[in-house]
C-alpha cells in the first residue's frame, strides 16, 4: 500500500446530504471535533434534487393537523411495517426542524398570513409540505451547507470512503481515497455517522445520481451491522419516460398535489379502478368528487391520483402491461387542463423548465408522459429509533441509508423531514458517544489490507469493462427485481449477480489515479452488487405483497408478515437472513391508526385489473 494521509476526529460524518449536514451541525455544536466527508462537491448531494417539499404538521394551512395525524398517515402509508417509535419522533419533531431551517435563512413559500405555506402530497391527509416551488431540496441543502460553512466545520469534498475500520466490536474510523488525486486517506474516529443515501444506481430506470451506489449499506454490513427491510424499494410513479436520455428523471408528486391528473392513452382517469380497501374511506371514488376536492377539500375526499406512491406505481405498471399505456411505455400526467399557465410556471418552475428543455413538451399546454422510476429504498441499516445507533458500537446511520422509519413505503415529503429529525439525533448521539468512548485503536493490518484492495484494480490487469458490468447489473435489477417480483426471476437474479461479481473482480482500469471515473466505478461495483444481492435475497424471503415489495406469486398482503422484518447480517463473508418480530405499537398510538389492516391483493398487471385489493 502506498503512503496514506491520516486524520483524527471525534465524529466523522460520511455523506453531505440533508442527514449528513444536519448530523455534523449537531455534533459540532455539542463540542465534538467533526468532519464531513462527501463524494461530490459540497451542495451537490442527492438532497439537492428533492422537489416537492418537507412534510411537517405545522398546521399553517389546516389548523386541525398535528403530529398524531402525521404519525397515522406515515404508518398507514408504510403499511404498518414502520418502526412506530421512529414514526412518532419524526412526526413530533419535524415542525421544529423545519422552523429551525428558517432560523438559518431558508425562505419557504408563504401563506397569505406570512407563515410557511404547505402543499398537498400523496398519503398525507392534510396539505402538509413546506416547500419552495418545486426546488425545496435546493433550499434545504444550501441552508444546511451555509450553516455548516459558517460554523467552520471541516469538509473533505470529493473524497470517497470505502471501508469502515473496526477495533474489536466498535468502529474506529474509515478508509478511502481522494477522487481528485487518487491518493488514499484514512480517518481515525471515535464515532462514525453514515449518511450516504441509497442504491438507486443498481437499476436502469432511476431518479438517482451516480452517487447512489449503496456505500453506507455495504460498509455497515461489512462492519457487522444489521440490515432490515431491504426488499422495500420505492418506485416513484412519475419519472420521465421520453426521450430515452431522460428516462427515469423525477417528476415531482407536487404536480399531482397541485392539480395534475393521471390518464391512460384513451384519456381515462384509471386511478379510480385501483383504490385499495385500506384507503377507500379517505379517497374519492368518482371523478366528480375528486374534481370537487381541488376546490373544497373540507367536504370532499382526496383524488386517488394522490394515493401513496406504491399504489400509484403499481397501477401505472398494470395499465401499461394491459396495453393502455402511451407509445413510449408510460401514462399521461396532465395539469394543463385544470390549471392556468401562470399558476403552473409559478408552482412548478423546474418541471416546466425540465420538460421544455429536455423533452420539447410545454406542460402548460401538453400532457407529460410518465412512468415509474426507482427512487428510494425504505430498507437499510437497522438503527435504534432514539439515537440512530446501529448494532455496531460507535456507528450511527441517518437518512435513506437507515431503515425503519418508512416501513414498506415512504410517503412523499417524509424524506426531507426524516433527514433533519434523525440527522440531528444521530449527530447528538455520536457526539455523546465520542465523549464517553476512549480513543480507538487503528488496526494497521486491517488498514493495509483495505488500502491494497483499493489500489488493486490498477495492478490486476483485468479484462472486463466496469461500465459494461454496471450496465448489465442495471438491466438485471430492472428486469428481475423490479416493481413486480416472483421467485424464479429473483433466483435468476441471484445467479446473474454471482456472475457479475466474478466479472467485477476482473474489472480493467486504465490511466492514472488522478480523477479516474473508471477506477471509481470498478470499486463501486462491489457495493452495488453486494447491496443488490441483499435486496434480492430479502425479496425472496418475504412471501407476500406489501408496499414497495410486490410478489406476483404471493399477491396478497399477509397479516402474519406484517409483524416481521427481514433481517440480514454478514457472517463469515456470507449474508445470513432471518425474520424477527417488529416492535408492537403501544395501545395509545395504536388507537390513532384505525382498526383496519392492509389487506387485499396487489395489482401485478398479469390479469385485467379490477378494483385492485377489493377483496
Amino acid at each position, binding site marked *: 500500500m502506498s503512503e496514506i*494521509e491520516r486524520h483524527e476526529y471525534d465524529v466523522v460524518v460520511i455523506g453531505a446530504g440533508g442527514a449528513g449536514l444536519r448530523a455534523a451541525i449537531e455534533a459540532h455544536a455539542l463540542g465534538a471535533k467533526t468532519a464531513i466527508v462527501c463524494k*461530490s*462537491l*459540497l451542495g*451537490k*448531494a*442527492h438532497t*439537492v*434534487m428533492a422537489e416537492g417539499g418537507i412534510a411537517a404538521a405545522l398546521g399553517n394551512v389546516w389548523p386541525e393537523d398535528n403530529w398524531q395525524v402525521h404519525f397515522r398517515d406515515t404508518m398507514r402509508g408504510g403499511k404498518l411495517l414502520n418502526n412506530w417509535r421512529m414514526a412518532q419522533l419524526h412526526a413530533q419533531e419535524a415542525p421544529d426542524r423545519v*422552523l429551525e431551517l428558517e*432560523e*438559518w*435563512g431558508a*425562505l419557504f*413559500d*408563504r401563506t397569505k*398570513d*406570512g*407563515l410557511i405555506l404547505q402543499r398537498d402530497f400523496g398519503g398525507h391527509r392534510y396539505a402538509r409540505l413546506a416547500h*419552495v*416551488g418545486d*426546488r425545496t*431540496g*435546493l*433550499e434545504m441543502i*444550501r441552508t444546511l451547507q*451555509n*450553516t455548516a*460553512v*459558517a460554523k*467552520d466545520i*471541516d469538509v*473533505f*469534498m470529493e*473524497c470517497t470512503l470505502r471501508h469502515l475500520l473496526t477495533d474489536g466490536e466498535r468502529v474506529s474510523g474509515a478508509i478511502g481515497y481522494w477522487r*481528485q488525486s487518487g491518493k488514499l486517506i484514512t480517518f481515525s474516529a471515535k464515532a462514525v455517522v453514515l449518511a450516504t443515501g441509497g442504491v438507486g444506481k443498481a437499476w436502469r430506470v432511476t431518479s438517482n*445520481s*451516480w452517487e447512489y451506489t449503496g456505500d453506507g449499506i455495504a460498509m455497515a454490513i461489512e462492519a457487522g451491522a444489521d440490515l432490515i427491510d431491504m426488499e422495500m424499494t420505492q418506485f416513484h410513479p412519475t419519472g420521465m419516460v*421520453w*426521450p*430515452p*436520455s*431522460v428516462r427515469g*428523471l423525477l417528476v415531482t408528486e407536487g404536480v399531482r398535489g397541485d392539480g395534475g391528473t393521471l390518464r391512460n392513452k384513451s384519456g381515462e382517469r384509471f386511478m379510480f379502478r385501483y383504490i385499495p380497501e385500506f384507503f377507500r374511506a379517505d379517497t374519492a371514488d368518482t371523478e366528480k368528487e375528486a374534481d370537487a376536492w381541488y376546490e373544497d377539500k373540507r367536504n370532499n375526499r382526496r383524488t386517488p391520483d394522490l394515493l401513496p406512491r406504491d399504489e400509484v406505481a403499481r397501477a401505472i405498471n398494470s395499465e401499461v402491461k394491459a396495453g393502455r399505456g402511451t407509445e413510449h411505455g408510460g401514462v399521461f400526467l396532465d395539469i394543463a387542463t385544470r390549471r392556468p399557465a401562470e399558476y403552473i410556471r409559478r408552482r412548478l418552475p423546474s418541471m416546466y*423548465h*425540465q420538460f421544455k*428543455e*429536455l423533452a420539447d413538451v410545454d406542460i402548460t399546454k401538453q400532457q407529460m408522459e410518465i412512468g415509474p422510476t426507482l427512487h428510494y429504498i425504505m430498507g437499510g441499516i437497522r438503527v435504534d429509533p432514539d439515537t440512530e445507533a446501529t448494532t455496531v458500537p460507535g456507528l450511527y446511520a441517518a437518512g435513506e441509508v437507515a431503515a425503519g422509519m418508512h416501513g414498506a413505503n415512504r410517503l412523499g415529503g417524509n424524506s426531507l423531514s426524516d433527514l433533519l429529525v434523525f440527522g440531528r439525533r444521530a449527530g447528538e448521539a455520536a457526539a455523546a458517544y465520542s465523549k464517553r468512548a476512549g480513543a480507538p485503536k487503528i488496526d494497521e493490518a486491517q488498514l493495509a489490507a483495505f488500502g491494497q484492495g483499493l489500489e488493486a484494480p490498477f495492478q490486476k490487469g483485468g479484462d472486463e*469493462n466496469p461500465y459494461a458490468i454496471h*450496465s448489465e447489473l442495471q438491466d438485471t435489477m430492472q428486469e428481475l427485481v423490479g416493481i413486480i417480483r416472483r421467485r424464479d426471476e429473483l433466483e435468476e437474479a441471484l445467479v446473474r449477480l454471482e456472475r457479475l461479481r466474478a466479472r467485477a473482480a476482473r474489472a*480493467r*482500469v486504465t*490511466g*492514472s489515479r*488522478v*480523477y*479516474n*471515473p473508471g*477506477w471509481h*466505478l470498478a470499486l463501486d461495483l462491489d457495493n452495488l452488487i453486494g447491496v443488490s444481492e441483499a435486496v434480492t435475497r430479502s425479496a425472496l424471503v418475504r412471501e407476500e405483497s406489501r408496499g414497495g415489495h410486490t410478489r406476483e406469486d404471493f399477491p396478497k398482503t399477509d397479516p402474519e408478515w406484517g409483524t416481521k422484518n427481514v433481517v440480514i447480517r454478514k457472517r463469515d463473508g456470507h449474508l445470513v437472513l432471518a425474520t424477527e418480530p417488529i416492535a408492537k405499537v403501544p395501545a395509545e398510538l395504536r388507537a390513532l391508526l384505525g382498526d383496519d389492516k392492509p389487506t387485499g391483493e396487489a395489482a401485478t398487471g398479469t390479469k385485467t385489473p379490477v378494483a385492485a385489493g377489493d377483496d
Partner: protein
Amino acid sequence: MTDVQVWVWRGDASGGDFMPYKVAADEGMVVLDVVHRIQAENAPDLAVRWNCKAGKCGSCSAEINGHPKLMCMTRMNEFPAGEHITISPVKTFPVVKDLVTDVSFNYEKAKTIPPFKPKPKDSDGKRRMYQEDIDRVQEFHKCIECFLCQDVCHVIRDHDENKQSFSGPRFFVRLAALEMHPLDTNERIDLIRAKHGLGFCNITKCCTEVCPEDIHITDNAIIPLKERVVSAHYDPIAWALRRMRGKKDEFVPPEPKPPSA
C-alpha cells in the same frame, strides 16, 4: 442510428488537446450523454463531474463550442448536422483533469461571507414574511452553484491576479440574498466594497446571459448592491456615523484551515 462526433479536451495541468470521439446518437441526447457514452466505450478514465442530470445540481459545467453551459441541459440537436462540436473545461479555474477543474476558489470565498443573523421572532414566537417581500430573494436562492457566472466573468477569467480581491457574480448573488432577506440583521456592506470587490464589476451582464437558472444577476443583485454601497459608503451622514463608531465593520479574515479541500 447515426453517429455523433465531438472533440473533447483531454489533459491535465501540464497541458492537453482536443481528442475526437464518435459514438452512436440517441433521440433527445444531451452533451452529458455523449460524454458518458465516450467513457463507457472509449475512454473509461475520462474525468467529468455530474450528479442530477436535470439542471438542478450545477455539477456538469463546461464550455461547449466555447460557451459556458451545463452539459446535462445542452441538447445535441441544438447543433446543425456536421457542426464541429468541442467540449472543454471551464477556463476560469485550474484544470485537474479533462473536464474537471479545481473550483475550490468558490468554496474559499464562501467562507468569507458573514452568515445569516435573524432578528427576534414576533411576540407570539412565529416568523412572518410575506410572499411579495421574499420573491426577489427566492430568485437568488435558485442559484445551483454551477459557477458558470464565475467562468464567464472577465474580471477573473483572464486575470488570476484579481481572484484575491474579487469574489465574482455567484457571491454577489449570495450577498444580495442575505442583504435583502427580510429577517437578516448582519452587516456586510463595507465588506462587499472592500473585500469582495464589487467595484470591479462594470456590469457587462455576461454572467446574467449564461445563468442556467435565469437569475437576473446584474440587474437584481449587483446593481442594487452597488447602490447600497454607494449610499452607505459615500453618503456623508453614513460616513460620519461609521467614523464615530470606530472601525467596527473592518473585515477579519478567517483563520487558515487544514485540508478542507
